[in-house]
């Protein structure tokens, strides 16, 4: 049995996340994203590899979307409405509510502003979203009788989820994007300790380790404050959802505290509309935000106003949130064109910009001029502030998650090739987990867990579940000094060695059955054959027995002699074998199955071999034990042979 993971997108890159995983005969597509950096067919995953014959509905059992970012959901309407996938699609409630806003916004930018050919229409988006089944966190969704999926909180944006998928005994987690530290409005990712064969994780910040969030937030606020204090305009290009709310909460709070009245604007109705969704989806935000809800909705921002296009060139300082993020086009680009040439203005960019966007160009080096297309060039004189906080986990977070889940295999996606290679090395060396970082269109196959079903007899189940206490003596530090007794006493150690031991029987073509070993003879209708051992040898004593012969016939005296011999033996053995539990039964001493008794007959058949020391009046020790305890028995016997059991008579 194996799990196959075909990476259609986000393999050694960021953008168009899409992985088709075959697990236990079921095929799941995780995410269906688009690449923001490309305008040609490279923007979509190469779906044809998922189903060469074009029958996507037959080839896939379901699609799972982790969150509403376009690089995770952007290709979905194209895939369902144009490519014709008709099967089930799963996403969380917030993702289902907010993804259409993102898609529609993107479509408008592409078609109305850039004048591109339409990839999908507004109707396509609506029709596509109708097919989506919304799921709640931790809800176990039975896709069909075998395939089970479950969403876990991922923290990255509202509604972001990691998805667990299980078929039979094989299971995997696909993380999507996640954040291991809570931010202002979202909690940290949360997942159960699961038995996983495979973990597919993002690795955007595969090598970055971030310091405290507080200093980073402060840096941002200082930069913004400095700019507006100098009369400058701050452009914050963000997507309508997620970062916008996070930064807005931060700014709104700061404005309140510092008593600032510089206007904060939202570029379009979109963000206002988005805030309305946020209010209804407050259960998906952080605990702290939820708690404040009854008194005041934290998404009612006090200092935030709507922005109008005519205000772009109006004088005076302001802060503007404009969509889309990364300045990939649309309104944020329009504002950027106007504001970039002035050095008092400030543009803040997120920690990550997809290659090919203006944001990416601004971040790589300090360009003074940016070629928009072959006719337009923008002078860039404004300040650039790079936001170093991002709702993605850092390298430590990824390592923490991998360590916590301890999957059998890890696949890295959604990151940059060199950084991924370094993280891969770290996971393999530090955690000892095989790790892969496939490129796009590569397939990784890993083995999966499998259980064999069997039935079991009650006796077997009972014997393996019932406690199996083992007592052994240990020399401990428990001093009994209070009584002045300096002798080190062994104390009893109790262990519960619950080992399931049984016999597996397969009769003909019937299912395997596990039985207790005591049941086997009955099952086979044959009697058990036991192998026992016996050995009788003289006790070694330097003091010759002065006792006259006739004493042997005196039962009373004899038994007292025997007893004292055994007592002496017991005493010596307890000193030698402190770990063993040596039991005294009067007539004999018992260690595990070994019985040691004083031989009562002269003609003991087990007195094999020569006993040079034996003579008249020698006492013989007769030992018997069962197969299995041979090692112990022989060890004890050889010890006894060296002991001087001279009787203090």
């Amino acid at each position, binding site marked *: *049995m194996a799990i196959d993971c075909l990476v259609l997108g986000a393999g050694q890159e960021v953008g168009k996340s899409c992985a088709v995983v075959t697990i236990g005969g079921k095929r799941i597509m995780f995410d269906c994203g688009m690449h923001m950096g490309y305008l040609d067919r490279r923007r979509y995953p190469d779906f044809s590899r998922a189903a060469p014959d074009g029958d996507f509905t037959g080839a896939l059992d379901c699609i799972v979307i982790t969150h509403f970012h376009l690089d995770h959901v952007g290709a979905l309407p194209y895939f369902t409405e144009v490519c014709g996938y008709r099967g089930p699609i799963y996403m969380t*409630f917030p993702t289902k509510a907010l993804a*259409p806003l993102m898609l529609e916004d993107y479509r408008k930018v592409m078609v109305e502003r850039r004048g591109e050919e339409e990839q999908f229409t507004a109707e396509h988006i609506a029709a596509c979203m109708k097919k989506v089944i*919304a799921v*709640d966190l*931790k*809800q*176990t*969704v039975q896709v069909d009788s075998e395939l089970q999926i479950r969403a876990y909180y991922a923290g990255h944006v509202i509604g972001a989820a990691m998805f667990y998928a299980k078929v039979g*005994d094989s299971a995997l987690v696909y993380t999507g994007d996640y954040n291991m530290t809570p931010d202002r409005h979202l909690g940290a990712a949360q997942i159960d300790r699961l038995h996983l064969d495979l973990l597919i994780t993002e690795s955007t910040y595969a090598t970055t380790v971030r310091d405290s969030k507080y200093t980073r937030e402060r840096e941002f606020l200082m930069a913004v404050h400095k700019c507006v204090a100098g009369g400058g305009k701050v452009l914050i290009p963000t997507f309508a959802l997620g970062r916008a709310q996070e930064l807005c909460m931060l700014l709104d709070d700061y404005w309140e505290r510092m008593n600032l009245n510089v206007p904060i604007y939202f570029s379009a109705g979109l963000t206002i*509309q988005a805030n309305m*969704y946020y*209010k*209804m*989806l*407050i*259960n998906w935000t952080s605990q702290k935000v939820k708690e404040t*809800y009854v008194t005041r909705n934290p998404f009612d921002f006090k200092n935030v106003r709507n922005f109008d296009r005519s205000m772009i060139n109006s004088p005076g300082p302001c802060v503007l949130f404009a969509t889309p993020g990364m300045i990939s086009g649309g309104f944020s680009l329009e504002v950027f064109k106007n504001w970039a040439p002035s050095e008092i203005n400030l543009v803040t960019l997120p920690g990550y910009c997809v290659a090919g966007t203006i944001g990416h160009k601004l971040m790589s080096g300090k360009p003074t001029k940016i070629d928009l297309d072959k006719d337009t060039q923008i002078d860039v004189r404004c300040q650039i502030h790079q936001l170093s906080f991002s709702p993605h986990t850092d390298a430590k977070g990824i390592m923490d998650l991998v360590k916590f889940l301890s999957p059998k295999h890890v696949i890295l996606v959604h990151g940059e090739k060199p950084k991924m290679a370094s993280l891969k090395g770290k996971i393999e060396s530090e955690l000892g987990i095989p790790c892969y970082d496939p490129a796009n269109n590569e397939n990784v196959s890993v083995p999966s*867990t*499998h*259980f*064999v*079903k*069997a*039935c*079991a007899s*009650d006796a077997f*189940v009972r014997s393996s579940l019932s406690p199996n206490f*083992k007592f*052994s003596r240990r020399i401990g530090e428990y001093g009994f000094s209070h009584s002045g007794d300096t002798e080190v006493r062994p104390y009893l150690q109790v*262990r519960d*060695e619950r*080992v*399931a*031991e*049984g*016999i*597996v*029987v*397969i*009769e003909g073509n019937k299912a395997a059955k596990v039985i207790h*070993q005591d049941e086997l003879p009955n099952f*086979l209708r*044959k*009697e058990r*054959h*036991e*192998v026992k*051992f*016996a*050995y009788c*040898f003289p006790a070694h004593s330097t003091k010759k027995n002065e006792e006259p012969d006739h004493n042997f016939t005196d039962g009373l005296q004899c038994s007292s002699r025997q007893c004292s011999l055994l007592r002496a033996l017991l005493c010596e053995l307890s000193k030698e074998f402190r770990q063993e539990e040596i039991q005294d039964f009067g007539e004999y001493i018992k260690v595990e199955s070994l019985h040691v008794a004083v031989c009562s007959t002269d003609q003991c*058949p*087990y007195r*094999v*071999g*020569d006993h040079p020391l034996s003579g008249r009046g020698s006492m013989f020790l007769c030992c018997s034990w069962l197969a*299995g305890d*041979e090692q112990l028995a*022989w060890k004890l016997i050889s010890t006894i042979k060296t002991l001087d059991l001279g009787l203090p008579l």
Partner: protein
Amino acid sequence: MKLTCLSRGKGFYFPPCHMLSVCGFRILIDCPLDLSALAAFAPIPPGFSAVRGEEDLERPVDESDGCESGSAERKNTEKPMNAEALIRSEPWYKTVANLHLWNPSFIDVVLISSPAGMLGLPFLMRAKGFSAKVYVTEAAAKLGKLMMEDLVSMHEEFRQFYGTQEFSSPHWMKWEKLESLPSALKEIVLGTDGIELGGWMPLYSAADIEDCVKKLQRLKYAEVACYNGTINIKPISSGLEIGACNWTIRYPDGTIGFVSSSEFVPGHALEFNYNALRSCDVLIYSDFSSLDVLETANKGSNYAVPEDSSTLSDLEEVLLHADESSEEMDKLKFISSCAVDAVKAGGSVLIPIGRLGIILQLLEQISVCMESSRCEVPIFVISSVAEELLAYTNIIPEWVCKQRQEKLFSGEPLFAHVELLNGERLQVYPAVYSPKLLLHWQEPCIVFCPHWSLRLGPAVHLLRRWHGDEKSLLVWEEGMDSDIALLPFDPKEMKMKVLRCSFLSGIVLKKVRPLIHVLQPKFVMLPEDFGRQIMSPVANSYSVLHYSVNETLKLPILKEDSELEITADLISQLHWKNLKDQNLSITRLKGNLVMSDARRQILTSDELSCSKSEKPPLLWGTLDLQRLLARLSEMGIGGSLQEDSVTDGSSDARILRINAPSEALLEIRSTSTLISAANEELAFRIRDAVDGILDGT
């Protein structure tokens, strides 16, 4: 598996209560309170004349002396049924009496299937030794907490009126007092057989609620919780109320489906997900609602029995056919129009209904109705928790019906009350005496407020105010005895119109059988009286078992053998031995038996058993002496066989004496072989030879 029904409850507000025993674990399902029993108490102020009320309060002190002499005469003098007969004391609350027969510390798991099902939980959870895990859906926990807090805050009024109560049992619990109660009240307090007196408890405190709520294990719908690795518990939406659920309980040997009162097409909560209950081994049917209807209206005869031959899809169509839900809708519309008519005529409307679903839908309906008839009166919701409750209902799209979920996706609020609140047509206040309410108060108006028992909360005050006004309307639920409930409100002067309505609170009778057919369990456990009437004894694919209150019903064993899963890793390490004569393959198995996810799994044990290394093989059969001799000589061990009857008592042994390489002796019997050698190595080699010849593993 064993089932004991502790109480069949009483409708929506007092759900049934059961104790299950599964895999040796005790599972309590629901822990409700019978709030209808509050009817036995007088609301405050207890009488219209304050003087009379005080006199009454004094009486118990006087009586304590004279009761012994006068008790004989007093015993049979039952007080007449009037407002004075009601108990004038800080009320106690009636829990499930039978639950007190069980030691709380022996309960392992508590499942709460609706907000109403957790009202008694603080009593249980503060009991000494209680350590069970309590599972409840997130939404039910929230609503239940609000209901309990509201109850405590309404009860506070009694505390203030009667003062702090001494710890001992209250005066009304004295036997003479109980004896003198009118029979109807006596039945409320004692039950028919008198045991129910043990179920009365003084109310918990806000701190108790806090403690209780802190310890709850909150679940989402269809979230699987695993108890002790052995039992998987999963709540499934039942449609009765937001957060209300049915349960599947999976243990290694089977699956139990527990059906509480459920609604197929509810107007507010997420629909009854019956598909998740398919092919359970046992279905415990605990929806008594249709039974209540059966008893009161005796509709038993005129329902359409679905043909047994009808296909499953037909049956499902029957299930999802929403006639009872559209009936509900009509009911709500009717109530709304009555309410609007009343306010138009200048009267006020009091709606003391405790069902969140009904309140939310009535708010929507009434506002629509008022708009269409251009009638503008304020709607007040008065309750200490109303603000939080109304806010909460709008942030839980995951818990509401599909139709309302669509509202989220189109960016509209889930319930219309959000818009009403914004428009100030709906006003929410914590209590009747809130200064803001007094400021905005105007009549006529429509008031939603607790409590439906008409003994607690704002409803008491408003009813006092309006009961004489024939233009006003009381919208009230069926279920309580109206004679007793309205006693404190001067029945002679009661001119207020009363609209009594009953709402759907479970699966309607005609759907019960189709449901069971669709779910196809192996066994169905039905309430006794219920089952006999409905389940015709036709051959079914399932067996029907009947349960009755306080009797333990034992389920026959589902499976002969226990199921087990063994890791493939371990299987691949096994050395199989074929026994040709019996067509058997056999091997020894050693691992760790782990209970995980309600399955028995055998995993490779990573820790080496510290004491012993390898277990000796298990051998059977009789030793073939000729083969043994041959084998031994191959190994260079020589010996001679000796027929010898050795004294052992049990069986004759044959002796094999070994003389090379050194002396040894074998005693061979039919079921055992004894090896005696002075040399460890030789003994070991002989054993090896014996093992090789015998069958074994």
